[in-house]
């Protein structure tokens, strides 16, 4: 199995340099997970887990390694968040529950409002928004999320509108 890392470099996936791939891609995966989850320790854990999965079961081709890493880490993140939500529900019966994020690190109140606005989006909307912000094309967003490429525009429009509504309100409140 071969893949093109850079157009001119061809590397076999049989003995790829794990460390090299890690160094080149870890910051991106960590950032992505931080945007989705906002919880640093969990983001670090899951970024690590993503690369362990890469090591254990690399994709057949590395032509779209970025897309693979983002897809795997996104799935891990939502699995984790769903688990946390259930856990919290179990632990505090009767109390209102929602995803809660580790917000201590958000020193800027504006960042905190952005975080909260993101929290209110469902998985599909949140992921699309983050992916677009990170510079992925509609094609790539469709590939990562499994959404039909034709629906990406609509999904983004709705997600941004929802985000805007919450964020604007909170921001006005703060500023």
């Amino acid at each position, binding site marked *: 199995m071969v893949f093109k890392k850079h157009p001119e470099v061809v590397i076999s996936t049989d003995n790829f340099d*794990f*460390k090299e791939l*890690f*160094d080149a891609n*870890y*910051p991106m995966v*960590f*950032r992505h997970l*931080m*945007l989705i989850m906002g919880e*640093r*320790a969990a*983001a*670090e*854990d*899951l*970024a*690590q*887990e993503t*690369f*362990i999965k890469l*090591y*254990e079961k690399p994709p057949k081709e590395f032509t779209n390694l970025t897309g693979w890493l983002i897809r795997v880490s996104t799935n*891990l993140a939502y*699995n*984790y968040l769903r*688990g946390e939500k259930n856990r919290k529900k179990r632990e505090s019966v009767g109390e209102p529950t929602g995803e809660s994020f580790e917000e201590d*690190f*958000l*020193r*800027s109140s*504006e*960042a905190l*409002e*952005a*975080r909260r*606005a*993101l929290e209110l989006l469902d998985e599909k909307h949140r992921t699309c*928004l*983050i992916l*677009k*912000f990170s510079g992925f*094309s*509609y094609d790539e967003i469709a590939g990562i999320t499994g959404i039909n490429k*034709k*629906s*990406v*525009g*609509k*999904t*983004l*429009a*709705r*997600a*941004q*509108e929802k*985000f*805007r509504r919450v*964020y*604007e309100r909170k921001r006005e409140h703060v500023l």
Partner: protein
Amino acid sequence: MCYDEGTLQAYLDRELPGRKRWEIEAHIATCSRCAGLVARLQDASLLTDVGLTVLLREINKQGSSTEAAWAWTRLTRDERFGAPADTKGVYTMLSSRLKIALVPLAAAVAVAVALSFAPVRTAMADFLNVFRVDKVNTITITEKDISELRKATNNGGNVDIKNFGKIETSGFGRHAPQETTLDGAKKAADFKLKLPENIEGAGAPHFSAIQGTSTSLTLDVEKANGIIKSFGGKSLLPAGLDGKKFTMTTSAAIMANYPRENATPITIVQSKSPEFVFPAGVDPNVVRDVLLSLPILPDGIRQQLEKINDWQHTLPIPAVEGYTKTEQVKVNGADGVFMTTDKVRNKRINGNNANTLIWQNNGIVYGISGENMGLAQAQAIAASMK
């Protein structure tokens, strides 16, 4: 013909082929509805970008060290894939955290805690409740060590573990042994109990169970380093440990007391080895080194702890020189430690002077203890346990 918001969003994001773009541009110029919709979409896009940029800037400020992340990832990889086949696949999401049977914290804290209050505990129940291990190893502690340690902890202020971060515990409600029946003991134990058919000169056993516990410490590095500094510690915990959660879980310990006519009972204690869960991203060696470099640890103890190679699985049993003699022995083929006490002196600090045999087998730690019990008798009891 008007366009839906999805198409207009794609238009804004330059995701449409040239011809389609021109068509839309021409349409917007003449359609106020679509022009208004585009303006609104643009607005929302812009504000979303602002919000996420603010958030990302905050995230980048906090950045995660790729180098550190690599170190943990490699460790995890080696642990999972370098490990024997039968341990693969037991890791769930949460156990991307390293599971280590026993850690340096235990080693250093064991000694520090055990010695920070007067009686050095040789009662096995106390040990088993706190640590369980694959191996046992003794550390000789002199009276001078004890007084040094006590002086250091008195001068250094509060060594209460609560000052190192947030503590969460469970299972401590019924810390004291609860009396139970044989069936109750079997139920309470999460492993197969092993008992001798009978012990010569002793009656039928009474059982009690000590509940398993779980303690987590979410480290507050700033506070912890403050305490380390107050002890004159030079090497500090790395900032990356801040907010990391360390968990120690112990399983139920079962005690069987065999009454004797003219002596205190013979006690058999058994429990599963404790599990120490280190968070991902924490190099246990770093923590161990910091703890071992604490100046409150007397040199003699430090050197002995440093010499334990397999420290992750070894329980250091403090044996006080002059009070307790220890001997490495074989128990059913496994390594064990037999501890005998200087009757007169030990009675003074411990309130009892039982001899004790401790060993480990298949993840379970066993101890037999009894006044005037000889090694041969203890080994015979151990051999008859089924």
